[in-house]
């Protein structure tokens, strides 16, 4: 699980470095989330440096991809509705 978290964290970060486009960003967010869950499970089971590194990378990946992709949140579907109605 620790190795999995580390790999997912690296890929998540790569998604942000490679491109600021929408699809890589979404992939980076999903991988970051899965990686965080794996890293926490690994750290609780058997704490290791690899799990910590995976956790840190996944958090950074999630933050960078999240900031890049999410334009607006916490509002009641403002932009999504706007995107639909502007079609």
């Amino acid at each position, binding site marked *: 699980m620790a190795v999995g978290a580390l790999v997912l964290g690296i890929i998540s970060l790569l998604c942000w470095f490679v491109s600021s486009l*929408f699809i890589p960003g979404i992939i980076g967010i999903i991988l970051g989330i899965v990686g965080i869950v794996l890293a926490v499970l690994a750290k609780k089971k058997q704490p290791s440096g690899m799990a910590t590194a995976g956790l840190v990378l996944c958090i950074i990946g999630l933050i960078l991809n999240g900031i890049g992709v999410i334009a*607006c949140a916490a509002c*009641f579907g403002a932009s999504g509705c706007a995107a639909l109605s502007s079609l």
Partner: protein
Amino acid sequence: MLPVVNILGKDIGMYGVAIFVGLVLGTLFAVFHFSKYYDIKKEDLFYAILFGIIGLGVGAKLLYIITIIPDLIQNAYRLDLWTTLLAIFQAGFVFYGGLIGGILGIYIYSKLFKISFKKLLLIIIPVIPLVHAFGRIGCFFAGCCHGMEYHGFGSVVFTNTPFVKPELLNVPLFPSQIVESICNFIIFIIILCTYKKFKNTYKPIALYCVLYSIVRFVLEFFRGDTVRGFLLNLSTSQWISILLFVVGIGIFIYDHKQKNKEQNT
């Protein structure tokens, strides 16, 4: 206002930056301040917050998708896959969905590792208004969640943002995002000041539920953004606010009864 800034060729959404600042501050307050009053490991608390943040994102998005399903079905014949994905993923989160998802995330963590769910809630929920306050500042930068047309003190004019309807661009609007942000900061300060007094009770949670539901219910009358679900002249968020208010009062009563029971025994 300023939805996106370009740094070193990367587009950075100001909403994301604001919510990130809020989450970091909220986590620091929870881990280093509120946790002092309860016997819980900082590491566990941090992981529970991570699970909560994941739940928050997933819950807010899921509830948003549920609300746009009718629109998607109605427009299905002219939507391509890309536009649908964009409409679903890039924007639109429902705060109340996030609240439920976040609590569910914390619950899952507490069950997985057998940690007191009550303690986690009592430590994490007080920082929600702080994170939300920063989120609303992000909304202000993006231009979403704006108010109705208003020409009085503090009105704001959005000139170029995709989140404001074209007919409301260059029109003075009520600064609903800033007002809600200030109210959330005030709620956070009230909880912060009363936290020690309410230690080991559910009162901080009840206080948040009651105060925020009142603020949101009133502010909804001043909102002027986009399509909002309405039922009997009240918006969806106002109905949820009524529910949250009832829940808050219920928690107060439950807590009071528990205290009386403890005193009697």
